[in-house]
């Protein structure tokens, strides 16, 4: 029996014709909306190429190689392909890639960077390999409360906890929530990785452990409502945790902030005097249809002028950081990397601020800004940081 016989999508994967729709954004303006294809412009890196290579590997026409694994792991699971593919199996395209990755993991055949990423999460609860005891470093010097049954559990996530740039957005959100009078607390060093990237990398066993660990902890603390800084955590907790009994009310922070604004609790009256463009994070937009709330929040800020990029909402180009690629980095380097393409899109709007609602996008795009030498023209800011300024909070 060949591996294809037991592959979950054995009866589907041959249906990809490689027509190439998956490379386009919704407005058809170019073939650069599949991040790996945009980066390398070889058919092997296109969505159809990945599926055909997967099938060839599973039916033993093609041997496994590290290059094959890198091609598979370079997919950021941004779901652009699913939006564009006109055929009925489109809902399973990302699942087919994830299932292929699971097969590789089952056989211990993954790129070294993926192995390190997963090992770090297993050992340290984060992909960076930083100590669990340093997870709360983002909140040092603040009076942010530990979670003890407040209305909201603020889940910060790995990037917001450890990355020095993203830590600023994590603190900004905490400040905003506090100023708006929201009842919330954080887990500090007791927080664990949400597992969204682990799931997308195909490590189902580790994901299950993480999900169960988090669910048990949240339940033990009596948490009912969770607000996340990251759309990645939001996606895992909202869509995957219920499969393991984790039935929480999960909010991306922009949703909660917008509710607070509508209730008159979030003050943005100082305004934000800038022309700004907004980058849709994949796990908020294409994965969870969260296109409008961030825009409504931004539209509520006096003096802020929103300019859309040609590729926005479900046509947005992924920053290249999904499915662990913010750390595994199979798409980095070179001016065709998704992140560098994306900051160029932002610069073309004439905006001086590129707004994001995801700590991974924040880090990816800020790094790209430096590589493109656009720092004097454009700044990347998280919406939480923009609203902090609009609220007159220093």
């Amino acid at each position: 029996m060949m591996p294809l016989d037991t592959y979950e999508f054995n009866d589907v994967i041959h249906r990809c014709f490689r027509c190439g729709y998956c490379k386009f954004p919704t407005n058809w303006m170019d073939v650069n909306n599949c991040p790996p294809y945009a980066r390398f412009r070889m058919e092997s890196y296109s969505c159809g190429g990945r599926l055909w290579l997967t099938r060839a590997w599973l039916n033993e026409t093609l041997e496994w190689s590290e290059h094959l694994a890198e091609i598979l792991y370079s997919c950021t699971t941004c779901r652009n392909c699913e939006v564009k593919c006109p055929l009925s199996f489109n809902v399973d395209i990302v699942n087919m890639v994830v299932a292929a990755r699971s097969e590789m993991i089952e056989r211990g055949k993954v790129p070294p960077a993926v192995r390190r990423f997963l090992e770090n999460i297993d050992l340290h609860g984060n992909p960076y390999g930083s100590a669990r005891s340093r997870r709360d470093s983002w909140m040092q010097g603040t009076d942010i409360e530990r979670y003890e049954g407040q209305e909201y559990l603020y889940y910060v996530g790995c990037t917001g906890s450890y990355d020095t740039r993203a830590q600023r957005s994590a603190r900004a959100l905490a400040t905003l929530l506090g100023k708006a009078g929201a009842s919330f607390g954080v887990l500090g060093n007791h927080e664990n990785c949400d597992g969204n990237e682990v799931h997308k990398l195909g490590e189902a066993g580790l994901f299950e452990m993480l999900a169960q660990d988090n669910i048990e902890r949240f339940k033990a603390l009596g948490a009912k409502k969770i607000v996340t800084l990251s759309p990645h955590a939001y996606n895992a907790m909202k869509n995957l945790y219920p499969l393991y009994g984790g039935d929480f009310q999960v909010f991306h922070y922009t949703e909660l902030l917008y509710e607070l604004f509508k209730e008159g609790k979030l003050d943005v009256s100082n305004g934000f005097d800038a022309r700004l463009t907004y980058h849709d994070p994949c796990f908020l937009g294409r994965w969870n249809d969260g296109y409008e709330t961030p825009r409504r929040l931004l539209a509520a800020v006096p003096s802020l002028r929103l300019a859309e990029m040609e590729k926005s909402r479900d046509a947005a180009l992924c920053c290249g950081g999904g499915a662990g690629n913010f750390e595994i980095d199979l798409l980095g380097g070179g001016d065709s990397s998704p992140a560098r393409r994306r900051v160029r899109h932002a610069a073309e709007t004439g905006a001086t601020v590129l707004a994001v609602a995801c700590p991974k996008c924040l880090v990816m795009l800020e790094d790209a800004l430096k590589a493109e030498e656009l720092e004097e023209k454009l700044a990347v800011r998280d919406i939480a940081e923009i609203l902090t300024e609009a609220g007159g909070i220093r």
Partner: protein
Amino acid sequence: MNAIYQALADIVDAEHVSDRPEELYIYSFDLGTAEPHRPDYVVAPRTTGQVREIVRLANREKVPVVPLGGGLSLAGLAVPLKGGILIDLKRMDRILEVNEKGRYAVLECGVSQGQLTSYLAAHHPGLTHSEPGAPPAATVAGNALIHGQGDLAQPYGFNSDQVNGLEVVLPTGEVCRFGSCAIGASWFTNHPLPDVGLFFGWCGTTGLITKLSIRLYPAKRIRGVGQFVVEDEELVPEIIGRVTGTQMAEDVIAYSRAIPPFGLGLQHFTVNIAANSEKELEFKQELIWDDALGEYIRRGDGGYLGFTRGLEHPQISKTSDYKKGGGFEYVGSIMPIEKYPECYRRGREISERHDIPYTVTGRCVGVGHSMMFAWTYAFNRADPETMRQAREALHETDDLVLELGGVIWKPGTYGQQLILGRLDPGTRALMRRIKEVLDPGGIMNPGNWEGI
């Protein structure tokens, strides 16, 4: 390290060259039934200069060169039959100029149909181009080079007729220009310089097109599709004659197919109509449906099925996923319109003999001057037996095209040999001399037009 690989990396860069199994595997396939053949190298250049250097390298090393655009011909034209260097040209994807007054666009060879459609809609909404029924990833240049036809084929003919100029890298590495651009003027016309049409229909055996100028046309504000149906296939040629006689349509297509079952045996027509005002639209509809086709409706021979506003741009093709099989291929032909009834009947017989639900389509090219008639055969990519059946049906259909007095459009190697077998000896000798002069090393897409 392999010297050719290193030389290719020096010309382009290491990221856009590969001799690894994964790239060689992916680029070995056509999307239809053609047998795969692996290239030895895959390279994706960005500039004409890089293409030129790659071709010079191939000449020095006596290695085949296979140019690839969108790779959607479904005829196996970019399968590297004899290995060599496969050049993926899709990175050359800049729209260099759109001239609104002269109504043309200058494009690099990798610009896709979808990209041009989107660009015109965003920046020049008053202009459009003749977009083929291929997926939007098909390239404008590739489609023109195979004599493709688009949704303006009825008034303006083949897409190869829309070309105003070319930049070509010859098989020996020289770069040439054709049309007005050849004398340093703008790219506004292909005439009246001496005719050197050496690249259309040659299946990439005479050179690599790196730039082209393509004609654009006024995009009317209202565009839509009217539908008409008859039962008797014998009526189709005269109906097409009457509709094209009004000169009011942008695109006229007749088709018949076994799926869905209620359509079995019926001949459907789609007629694209465009107008700048409701008054113009009403006038055109009246001329087509009432004056030209009213008689069929009154006699009970045909039915008007309504008019839908808006064109699906680019078109969505779901044929490939028939029966969840992931594959289809078709034989296209350029055929006199009067042959429609026989094309339909004989094609249906072939399909039914091979246990494939039939699908036939005829798109009018010119004002009734010819049609592109296609017989489509779906297969299941996971089932080699269905692929074999489809391949047999395709070959039978290639034979049928010539038997019926048509010309095989974008023939694969099987069809090419059939054509060569019937080709006027003088023409064949001229083609051989042209090929020998242009490609003395025989490096360009070998296996195509073999034995010319």
